[in-house]
């Protein structure tokens, strides 16, 4: 493992970057600890790639500081920074073999030939590409090219590895495999990863910590579980799939329970939540998979229970997505029913049902 004393691996302090009239990164601050996999998650245009490029040195900051291992690197050009980038399009040199691609950075550092051969061989073994040394990028598959790009950057033993959506061009199956690969390699090598992606699933499965970004700013930094289960802002909630969002205010408290009320008079139950001042709360989000359906007349206590009418049912394989119309809510309620019991078609479109969820499924949001 790499020992850097007390300094954090990467620290970004109040960094901004503009392109003409467009502010890509807006007073951003974050830090990444040694050995972590840290993801920047957000839709396209949110500034995550720009942030990555600012760390790599491929763009210069307008204001603020970028620190690698405690040292300010603002003025250090890209080829001298101790970080390495895996590009979205991989950018493998088409006129060089796999071997030569991986050896490139080492050659620039004037490492001895014998040492280069040894390191390249070890890297090929690590990413499981032994036997492909003499091939050109055009002669290997997409997944193999990914691994070459990874090997090329890793062989330089950078302080931090920057990955710009490296899996976006792969199909789903390959993406899942490569995600596991990346994690495995990271654990083995212990290098810090800064990972940029727009894919929630990848971010959730890979990261130690996630920063959700929007319009150049950070919405929330938390663990994967925190981001998914306790989103703090409307943007994060919607981005992570908690599409059932109710605008409401605290109406009353009773022991450990809080009651919120929407404009339309809908009363929502939420459990006591830490870290959020209930008085400041402006809304509640609920993930679709936490809502259950029951026939009218079922006795349900101590939960949020409402009556709604099924508007749509979409079969998704592992689950069935149901959209309900509820008279006190403008938007449809989305429910994700697990398809654990096959062949069962309990409900039909147009039918009236009860939908309900536990108090601790209500997640409090603030503006």
């Amino acid at each position, binding site marked *: 493992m790499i020992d850097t004393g007390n300094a954090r691996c990467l620290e970004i302090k109040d960094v901004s970057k503009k392109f003409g009239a467009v502010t890509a990164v807006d007073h951003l601050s974050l830090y990444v600890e040694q050995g972590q996999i840290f993801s920047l998650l957000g839709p396209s245009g949110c500034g995550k790639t720009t942030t990555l490029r600012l760390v790599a040195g491929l763009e210069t900051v307008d204001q603020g500081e970028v620190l690698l291992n405690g040292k300010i690197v603002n003025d250090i050009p890209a*080829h*001298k920074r101790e970080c*390495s*980038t895996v590009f979205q399009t991989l*950018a493998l*040199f088409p006129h060089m073999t796999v071997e030569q691609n991986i050896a*490139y950075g080492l050659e*620039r550092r004037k490492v001895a030939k014998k040492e280069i051969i040894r390191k390249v061989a070890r890297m090929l073994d690590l990413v499981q590409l032994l036997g492909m040394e003499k091939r050109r990028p055009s002669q290997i598959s997409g997944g193999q090219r990914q691994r070459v790009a990874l090997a*090329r950057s890793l062989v330089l033993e950078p302080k931090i590895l920057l990955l710009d959506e490296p899996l976006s061009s792969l199909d789903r199956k390959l993406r899942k495999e490569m995600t596991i690969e990346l994690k495995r390699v990271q654990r083995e090598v212990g290098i810090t990863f800064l990972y940029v992606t727009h894919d929630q699933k990848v971010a959730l499965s890979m990261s130690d910590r996630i920063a959700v970004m929007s319009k150049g700013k950070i919405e929330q930094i938390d663990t994967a579980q925190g981001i998914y289960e306790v989103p703090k802002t409307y943007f994060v909630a919607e981005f992570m799939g908690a599409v059932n969002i109710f605008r409401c205010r605290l109406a009353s408290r009773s022991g450990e329970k809080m009651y919120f009320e929407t404009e339309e008079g809908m009363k929502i139950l939420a459990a006591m939540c830490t870290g959020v001042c209930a008085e400041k709360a402006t809304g509640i989000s609920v993930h679709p998979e936490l809502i259950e359906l029951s026939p009218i007349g079922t006795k349900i206590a101590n939960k949020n229970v409402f009556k709604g009418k099924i508007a749509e049912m979409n079969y998704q394989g592992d689950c069935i997505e149901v959209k309900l119309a509820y008279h006190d809510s403008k938007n449809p309620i989305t429910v994700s029913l697990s398809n654990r019991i096959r062949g069962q078609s309990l409900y039909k479109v147009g039918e009236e049902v009860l939908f309900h969820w536990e108090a601790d499924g209500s997640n409090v949001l603030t503006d």
Partner: protein
Amino acid sequence: MGAVADTISSKRSSKITETRRQHHSGKKIIGFLRRRAYFPYVGPLSVWIILFVIAPLGIIIYYSFLRAGPSGNIIAVFTLENYRALFNPTVRVVFLRTFLLAFLTNLICLIVGYPIAYWIVMYGGRWKHRLVFLLIMPSWTCYLIRLYALKTLMGYSGLLNAVLLKLNLIQAPLQLLYTPGSILLGLVYAWLPFMVLPIYASLEGLDPLLLEASSDLGANSFERFFTVTLPLTKGSLFVGSLLVFIPSLGDWLAPLLLGGDKVLLAGSLVEHYFLKQGNIPVGSSLATFLTAVVLLALYVVIKFAGQDALERVL
């Protein structure tokens, strides 16, 4: 009654077999054409090329092996004496001079052309296209006029000498014309844009992420150029060289206007034998020799740079 019916039916059946036979051969032709749907498209071009490119060249090669008659006619006797003319000392000197000049032109265009193309692509920004246009534009003028302009500029009493005299940089006017050097300058002046164009196109098509990856992996600007940029644009150097070397070989106007007919190049010889002397066989042998050189150069370029690179320039 039966006999009449028989004759009518037999006539009808023979007519049917007759039409069937015609139909069958017509079908064959249609089938032939249908399998070759590309005929109507590439047909016109192919026919034209055969009639007016291959045939003329063929005829020249053919005539180069025939004997020249005393009154300008051609005797159909196979001979190699025309090719022996190539080894004639005067002719040899001319050819050597031609190749040397063409080679030097090529070299100078490479050395000067690549930096220009690089500068336009890397530092041109929004003005890139306009800069390239500005470079190509003089080439759109008639070659004759361009050489003439150059000649008046470099003449004994030309503008260049006048300016230099006035600035007191020289005491007496320089003899700038009528030397091989002036032809060299004329050739570079004429063909430099054609070296820059393919190099520019190639540099433009370079994936900028490859350059970023190179920097990211630790290469400084110089290393980046020699390990990534140059190798990936290698093909354009071949294409550019082709577009400079070959015209230089056959050029006849530059030696005429700038060399004053005192310094001859291969092109001048060809013109001389065909138009002035009317000696077709000897002229043909010279032309065939040049053709052979051109085809060789073309082969080398296509082998190393690929035909697409060549076509893309257009």
